[in-house]
């Protein structure tokens, strides 16, 4: 029988002990003695959240295909176990072998949201790994960070040995081979890190130096030795010919995503100006229909899941969506497997499909206009018009839906009070569509409209990366303005309003666009007890305010300050594909509320062309054809 790292007594005393026992269906069991490299993959949040993440599944599968490597997993122990481990000095362990993380060669941490940073420190701390990379010795694992947050890794640069910038499928094997070679040659940690810095896409922060001028701005950011000046984002060129897990792990307890995930494409054509994902995953690349059909069936067979989830940033843009859904509706229907379809743009086709796969009476339709007026939607380049929303909603009402969810952001650049007021006005117009067009006899009760607003956080590698975040007070003012305007609407009773907390968003702003000096704040907040900051019940702003005070870091400098066009941004050393000049151009267009066409309509030369793949190639070919035709005629 397997030996567990935690005693029965501990497992009996904590919530959901199954989080820590491993050995789930399809988990890979290898003999650690028989491999050269032990890699532990970490999602720094609770197990149920971490187990829902596709990226880790892909890399787990990819690493374990290598005979010389054993990849295992670890998640953040929940506070109940955290306390026990500290008290009893139990080192953090990987769920598969239950061996201490400290014995591993690598600890890879995926960084999906900034509010997990204190959990990163928790994982290091409980593992007995030095928090500061500079203090780590030869016997400690190499700590690597990946995921969307590494597009500005600077606030957490002190805690990591390496950051992997971009999609994991490309250079990890090269890195592992390099590690093996250097270890065989008797090389030291330092030798490996130097070698790693020459692998495209890997950023070794200790090999770079930052200097600031007297106003606190970055004045110089340079490699110390021969490390490359720019780190190039990694992009998979053919998504139908790459690693994908046929046998994803099935947890014993319900994960947040209690289903099989089928990533149909990566990237997005739309270029909404607030959206980091829309920029850092460019260009859009589709997986082939054959690939998806095959994997859908295999994954369902291999897991026994009862639901399959199509994942992408904007599923409606998948060109063969109709064929894919036809296949899935038949195939999955026969197997009594449900299909979940997030991020579909509401139109006749979407409603038809949704009507087939979900219970119209119970489900809702969702719009994310993100801005309350057409002017605002033009500012942010959200190509969604009021007419599209109202028509979509009315079509849905006619088919029996009566619940509508609307998502907006407050505090985006160039937002005026009338744009804030436009939000409840739009919601009211939707309600009117319902009451004016749906006869009483066929109504399924009242229409239920839910408006949610979040507090906009400017992110690196977006056109708004230079913009000032609004203050929490200003956010609250706009929220109250929205609420007051809502109460004046005819159908106010049918509209519910939810808003996000302002504290977490302003902190997120600090962590998203901070530089290396912000690391001290994170460390201090952790020492003050900050942990699971992404969980409202666990978040305590005071710990962070105290940390800011102790470290003397001025939060406003990072959050409320509009950056100059020529300022060196902390993340400028990353070559993410989208160029700084493109982003600046887009910021300008936002100021003038000028819409930019999407990648399928016209290439805006964002800089991602160099990968020669996906929509860039499609659009270039089409544009060349049109040009040739014009020449002929």
């Amino acid at each position: 029988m397997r030996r567990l790292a935690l005693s029965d007594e501990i497992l009996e005393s904590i919530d959901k002990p199954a989080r820590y026992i491993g050995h789930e269906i399809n988990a890979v069991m290898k003999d650690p003695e028989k491999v050269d490299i032990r890699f532990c993959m970490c999602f720094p949040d609770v197990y149920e959240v971490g187990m829902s993440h596709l990226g880790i599944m892909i890399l787990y599968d990819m690493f374990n295909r290598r005979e010389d490597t054993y990849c295992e997993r670890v998640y953040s122990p929940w506070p109940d176990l955290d306390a026990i481990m500290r008290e009893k000095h139990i080192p953090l362990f990987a769920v598969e072998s239950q061996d201490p993380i400290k014995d591993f060669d690598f600890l890879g941490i995926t960084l999906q949201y900034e509010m997990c940073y204190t959990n990163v420190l928790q994982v290091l701390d409980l593992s007995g790994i030095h928090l500061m990379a500079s203090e780590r010795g030869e016997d400690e694992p190499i700590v690597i960070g990946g995921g969307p947050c590494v597009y500005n890794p600077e606030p957490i640069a002190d805690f990591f040995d390496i950051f992997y910038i971009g999609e994991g499928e490309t250079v990890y094997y090269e890195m592992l081979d390099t590690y093996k070679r250097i270890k065989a040659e008797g090389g030291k940690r330092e030798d490996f890190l130097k070698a790693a810095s020459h692998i495209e896409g890997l950023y070794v922060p200790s090999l770079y130096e930052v200097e600031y001028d007297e106003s606190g701005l970055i004045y110089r950011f340079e490699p110390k030795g021969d490390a490359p000046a720019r780190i190039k984002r990694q992009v998979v060129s053919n998504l139908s010919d790459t690693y994908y897990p046929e046998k994803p792990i099935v947890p014993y307890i319900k994960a947040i995503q209690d289903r099989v995930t089928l990533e149909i494409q990566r990237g997005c054509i739309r270029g909404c100006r607030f959206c980091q994902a829309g920029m850092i995953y460019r260009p859009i690349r589709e997986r082939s229909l054959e690939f998806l059909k095959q994997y859908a069936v295999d994954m369902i067979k291999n897991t026994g899941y009862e639901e399959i989830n199509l994942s992408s940033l904007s599923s409606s843009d998948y060109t063969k969506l109709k064929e894919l859904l036809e296949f899935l509706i038949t195939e999955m229907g026969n197997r009594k497997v449900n299909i979940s379809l997030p991020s579909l743009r509401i139109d006749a086709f979407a409603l038809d499909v949704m009507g087939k796969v979900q219970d119209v009476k119970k489900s809702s339709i969702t719009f994310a206009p993100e801005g309350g007026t057409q002017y605002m939607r033009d500012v942010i380049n959200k190509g969604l018009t009021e007419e599209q929303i109202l028509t979509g909603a009315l079509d849905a009402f006619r088919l029996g839906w009566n619940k509508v969810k609307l998502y907006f952001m407050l505090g985006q650049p160039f937002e005026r009070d009338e744009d804030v007021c436009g939000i409840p006005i739009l919601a009211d117009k939707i309600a009117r569509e319902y009451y004016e067009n749906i006869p009483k006899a066929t109504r399924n009760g009242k229409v239920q409209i839910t408006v949610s607003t979040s507090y906009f956080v400017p992110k690196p590698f977006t056109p708004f990366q230079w913009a000032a975040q609004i203050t929490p007070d200003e956010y609250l003012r706009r929220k109250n303005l929205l609420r007051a305007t809502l109460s004046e609407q005819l159908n106010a009773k049918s509209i519910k309003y939810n808003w996000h907390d302002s504290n977490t968003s302003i902190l997120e702003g600090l962590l998203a666009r901070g530089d290396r000096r912000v690391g001290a704040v994170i460390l201090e907040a952790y020492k003050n007890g900050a942990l699971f900051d992404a969980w409202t019940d666990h978040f305590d702003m005071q710990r962070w305010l105290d940390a800011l005070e102790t470290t003397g870091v001025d939060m406003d400098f990072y959050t409320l300050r509009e950056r100059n066009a020529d300022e060196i941004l902390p993340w400028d050393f990353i070559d993410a594909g989208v160029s700084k000049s493109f982003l600046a151009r887009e910021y300008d267009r936002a100021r003038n509320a000028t819409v930019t066409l999407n990648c399928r309509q016209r290439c805006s030369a964002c800089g991602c062309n160099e990968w020669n793949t996906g929509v860039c190639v499609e659009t270039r070919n089409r544009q060349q054809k049109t040009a040739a035709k014009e020449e002929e005629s």
Partner: protein
Amino acid sequence: MTLRIRFAKYGALRFIGHLDVMRYFQKVIRRADLPVRYSQGFTPHQIMTFAHPLSLGVSSDAEYMEIDFTEELDPDDVLSRMRAQISEGFALISCCVVPETPEGTRSQSLMSLVSAAEYMVSWKDGYGEVPDESALRDAMHELYAQESIVVEKSTKKTTADTDIKPFIYRIYSGGEEFLAPSDPAFTGNKVITRSFAEGIDNLAHADIFENGRRFFVCVASGSAVNIKPGLVTQALCEKMGIEYNRHAYALHRMETYKGDTEFLPLDA
């Protein structure tokens, strides 16, 4: 057709809760590609029921579930197809066909059949004082001789003093002692048909400890009266003057019984 499957739960999977066990087996059935029956509606679910939930941390050789299938199947074939999908921590022991009920009558649910369960309670190593065999035996005799055994029984909402003596159907230790009381006052007129030797066979998936101290107890279980073996352990400890620590004992369910005056294993 309905099949009743007996399975064991042990090792690390003792820490999987009841609902998760159900979800686990639903996935096993799907991976085994067996023609299971689904409920109607937009989110159909498999028709699968369980006999008696097992507390977290307890191992068992006597878990039972019933699954409805749309086709006639060979129970052995079902077992082997399911076994191919099972992980360490679960073991499938037997599978039998549940007889159809005559038309017009409703079949009794598996859960409502349960009347008693038998456990082995072992002293874990490393938890302080382990009584010697004779002290344990004496305590059992003394306890058994009492008119009543009053313990504090707490549910989610209330705590109340309860006499559990009528619900302890037999208690024994080591191998020789067998306090299967013939005294009707003690047993409430229940007769246990399973022989002692048979009971002790169902230990394949129990944890064994070096100190070797353990006892066996059969208690009322199910929806009407449900006595946890921990309560009996607590009473025994009090008798012996040992401090009771709930973590110091390993519990293993050896059998789950049906029947009122005559107890039979659920797969008999």
